């Protein structure tokens, strides 16, 4: 299916081009992921979600050179209540919202461009590890919603990992992909994280290490899973005009797109037939049209990676390689350091830390600013972030 044969009746036009480069990220910050990983593993509880968010916010303010009084908008991440987060941060916003990583950036752009707020803090904090939050098992997500891994719990299908294992099994069968070739993702991301002092897993691994690790939910192995951790991330978004007056080079939101595949979601049909590709392709079409360029011009790709499976699906769905060519892409082009397409240059959820997509945004900003030291992608001009969590495909293109 190509974008010229769009399956959506209401395909729509990409978001108004006036939103392209209307807003920029001017400050980023995060909590001490490595230190808190050690402390939570030792049974301590360094802070709660609000505290981690506050630490990240403090860092982001310092990074931007702005004062707290400059902030007139706040978006709280999904794990903290908006009102309490405002209270903890000492902010009375004139505009506020709650959203996940990628939608918070898009909401901030629209708020800034329409004048609802001028300078918005996007703050994520989560004590998921020390609070023993389960993303699988009988208590997952309250256990009473129409989430597919809750609906199928009577059959023992109780985890997000199993849903992606089912998707990967069907996809690799359709593509003739060897299961162990998925190991290229974990190996590459660990090579990146070995150069990232903020990553909690920095020891390089080999394809043999990958193959020798146990299955968790076959066909997925240990290294296909993310690193659940406590932590916080914050970003500050403001108008392009104001961004130009600040100290750090602005990172502009050049384009974005979204398409959700919700029909048949509980029954797993969209993830098992086309592996969410129609959503990815339509999301890509919008984001590339708004940005004014496409995958060939991207200097790096950041993929929401709760599981390594997201990466091969994104390569096909967002037009980085032809259907059925991911295996060759991994082997011949490369996605690790020195590869043709650097992917998840921080190590991502698999190796840096699982911040539910938030840390991927600040990695885009730091790469585009040229702040990434040993793992810096040379002359990084355009970074594409994408998430396709359970059929909700969202992309942002960040540019210098």
């Amino acid at each position, binding site marked *: 299916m190509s974008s010229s044969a769009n399956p959506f009746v209401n395909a729509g036009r990409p978001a108004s081009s006036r939103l392209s480069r209307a807003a920029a990220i001017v400050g980023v910050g995060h909590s001490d992921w490595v230190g808190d990983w050690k402390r939570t593993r030792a049974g301590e509880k360094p802070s709660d979600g609000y505290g981690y968010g506050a630490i990240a916010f403090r860092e982001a303010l310092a990074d931007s050179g702005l004062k707290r009084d400059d902030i007139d908008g706040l978006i709280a991440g999904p794990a903290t209540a908006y009102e309490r987060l405002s209270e903890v941060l000492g902010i009375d916003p004139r505009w506020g919202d709650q959203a996940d990583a990628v939608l918070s950036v898009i909401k901030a752009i629209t708020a800034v461009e329409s004048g609802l707020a001028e300078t918005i803090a996007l703050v994520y904090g989560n004590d998921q590890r020390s609070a023993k939050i389960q993303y699988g098992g*009988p208590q997952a997500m309250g256990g009473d919603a129409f989430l597919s891994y809750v*609906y199928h719990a009577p*059959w023992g299908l109780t985890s997000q990992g199993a849903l992606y294992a*089912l998707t990967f099994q069907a996809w690799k069968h359709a593509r003739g992909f060897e299961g162990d070739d998925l190991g290229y993702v974990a190996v590459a991301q660990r090579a990146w994280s070995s150069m990232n002092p903020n990553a909690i897993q920095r020891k390089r691994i080999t394809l043999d290490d990958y193959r020798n690790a146990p299955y968790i939910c076959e066909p997925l192995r240990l290294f296909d899973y993310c690193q659940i951790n406590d932590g916080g991330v914050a970003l500050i978004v403001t108008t392009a005009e104001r961004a130009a007056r600040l100290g750090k080079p602005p990172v502009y939101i050049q384009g974005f797109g979204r398409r959700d595949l919700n029909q*048949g979601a509980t029954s797993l049909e969209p993830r*098992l037939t086309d592996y969410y590709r129609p959503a990815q392709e339509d999301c890509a079409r919008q984001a590339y049209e708004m940005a004014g360029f496409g995958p060939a011009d991207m200097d790096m790709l950041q993929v929401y990676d709760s599981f390594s499976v997201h990466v091969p699906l994104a390569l096909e769905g967002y037009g980085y390689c032809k259907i059925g060519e991911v295996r060759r892409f991994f082997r011949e082009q490369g996605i690790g350091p020195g590869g043709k397409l650097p992917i998840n240059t921080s190590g991502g959820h698999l190796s840096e830390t699982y911040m539910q997509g938030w840390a991927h945004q600040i990695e885009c900003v730091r790469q585009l600013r040229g702040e990434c030291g040993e793992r810096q992608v040379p002359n990084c001009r355009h970074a594409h972030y994408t998430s396709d969590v359970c059929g909700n495909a969202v992309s942002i293109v960040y540019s210098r």
Partner: protein
Amino acid sequence: MTDVVEAVRTPPAVMGLYDGPMWASIREGTMRLQRCLNCGEMQYPPGPVCPHCLSSNLEWQPISGRGTIVSWVVYHRTYLAAYPEPYNVVAVKLAEGPFMASNLEGETPAQSWIGAPVRMVYSTMLDGTVLPRFTLAATSAGKTP
């Protein structure tokens, strides 16, 4: 005895307003789903209207129990006492159209799981819960060539 049953409690089914009749039919050994009398489509999970045409004219009808495996996994970790590892989960495309997650009981496919024809069986769990599951249809059992 109560403790034993509690220890192997089957994870409870979501009981939305429209799930009750389906689970009642499962306990009776003939699973029923809603068929839309306007457009003919069946839906799973059950719901308030037909998602294909928005009609409310739905009728509970028995399903054939026939289907095809579209994907499968094997858990190698135990998260639930009712499901000690290793155990499988299969996604089955029912002959009537909808996809459904379940388990494959008995023999496993000699060749590819994906594409293997299956038929529904009704399993009684240790705590008495009846679950619709699948076994290989005769033609794809491991022993036959």
